[in-house]
């Protein structure tokens, strides 16, 4: 394998690692959305304490083929992200010789390999035992619908959406994927889809036994909410533009509630304080996650509820 092929392999491993945190992402680099890019930046910052720009990801990771290898320090960062200490280790390929004489170092290495093999064997046996002993009802499946942005057709992050049974009246508790799947198996189900970033939607889902592929539910994005979400991940550039836009999209009566870790307390911001906070973003904003938004009749954001990690 040459270095470029190794880089393709590294990109594949980065996606695999990304799916550990975002299991609903099932696409490839081509379908890697702008939100996924922001998620990946935050992940790299959390896991490797390194900042990677959106532009860098667009230049080096998004393209299907690459003509140029990125700088080595960036390759190190990606390698660390996938659990390898450095790029040198990642591209290292042991030389295979026909000789039966092996050096001390090789013996040590093969011993280590043997131990690894043994370890992996034990882990596999344990996993197999766990699989058969684990109660079947705990196995979760993806809900049999495809949520997508009405305009961009991009898949919607399912963790940002809550689905309620609205057959008679809208339920008080959101449905879990299992409950949803059971309810829609034989009968059609009217659901109310709620999200801080999309307009409320009521839609009827046909029984899963009657459809070949998962039905698509198109959600209309709330542009103002999407903007605030993007601003939480922004850096200092374009701060004046951001400030002007925030003044425009936030209600004068805005009330922002930041819930502290564990829900043990909360902190409030008014419009001026929130605009100031987002105009000059500090790393703290990366720990904020919008969980609920209420709008004025003209669409301006009136209440924002944020969870702080």
């Amino acid at each position, binding site marked *: 394998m040459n270095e470029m092929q190794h880089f393709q392999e590294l990109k594949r491993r980065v996606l695999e690692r990304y799916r550990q945190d975002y299991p609903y992402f099932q696409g490839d680099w081509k379908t890697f959305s702008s939100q996924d890019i922001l998620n990946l930046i935050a992940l790299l910052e959390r896991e490797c304490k390194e900042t990677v720009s959106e532009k860098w990801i667009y230049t080096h990771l998004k393209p299907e083929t690459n003509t140029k290898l990125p700088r080595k320090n960036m390759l190190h960062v990606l390698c660390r992200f996938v659990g390898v200490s450095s790029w040198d280790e990642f591209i290292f390929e042991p030389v295979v010789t026909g000789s039966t004489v092996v050096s001390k170092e090789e013996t040590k290495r093969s011993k280590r390999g043997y131990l690894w093999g043994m370890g992996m064997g034990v882990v596999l046996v344990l996993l197999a035992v766990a699989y058969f002993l684990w109660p079947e009802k705990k196995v979760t499946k993806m809900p049999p619908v495809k949520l997508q942005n009405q305009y961009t057709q991009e898949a919607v992050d399912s963790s940002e959406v809550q689905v309620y049974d609205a057959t008679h009246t809208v339920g008080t508790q959101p449905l879990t994927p299992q409950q949803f799947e059971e309810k829609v198996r034989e009968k059609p189900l009217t659901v109310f889809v709620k999200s801080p970033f999309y307009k409320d939607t009521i839609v009827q889902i046909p029984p899963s036994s009657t459809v070949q592929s998962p039905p698509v539910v198109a959600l209309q994005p709330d542009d103002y909410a999407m903007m605030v979400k993007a601003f939480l991940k922004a850096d*200092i550039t374009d*701060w*004046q533009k951001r*400030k002007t836009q925030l003044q425009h999209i936030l*209600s*004068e*009566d*805005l*009330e922002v509630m930041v819930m*502290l*870790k*564990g829900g*043990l*307390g909360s*902190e*409030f911001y*008014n*419009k001026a*304080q929130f605009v*100031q*906070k987002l*105009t*000059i973003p*500090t*790393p*703290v904003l990366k720990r904020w996650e919008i969980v609920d938004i209420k709008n004025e009749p003209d669409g301006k954001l009136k209440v924002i509820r944020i969870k*702080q990690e």
Partner: protein
Amino acid sequence: MRSGIVYIVFLWCASVWSQAATESMKTTNEQSLKQVFAAPVLQAYQENSDIKIQELFFYLQQLTQPGLEPSLRQEMETACLALFVNEATMVVDLTSPTPTHIPIATLLQKLAQSAPIQITVSERVKYNTVTYRSWTSGYTIRCVQNGSSREYAISQIVFFQLLPQQFGAHQQQTYQYRLGAMELR
């Protein structure tokens, strides 16, 4: 004469009792934050105050960056001052090789002339001296400037009290943070 003395003693006792009652009322009204909040809740608020300290040093570091445009500098200075009780709050002069205290407003002016400083705040923060509206946060910062590094062990008052907050047309009382004076430990 005897009745006069009894009368004076009675007045004195009444006065002492009245003063004691007033003191007692004052302490009841101004309960320690430890009495107002359950221990885990107070701890959550104290830990959240670390964010204010991290933000402060983030702004201070940014303010030493060369080529910062004046409007952005002003925006950052405003955000920085908003963290404090007032502009005269005394802080450690990060630009000086000898440890001294200056008002935060003066430090902001000095940072505009300073060489870039890389600031790291320790993750471990200790909270002491909880009063009815504040506690003291103890932390360490490391400043690297022109290749040389300095460390400061700081204890800083963090005010946490009910203050009126304006949300458009309506106002409500909310608990808010304000950073107070720094001292070198």
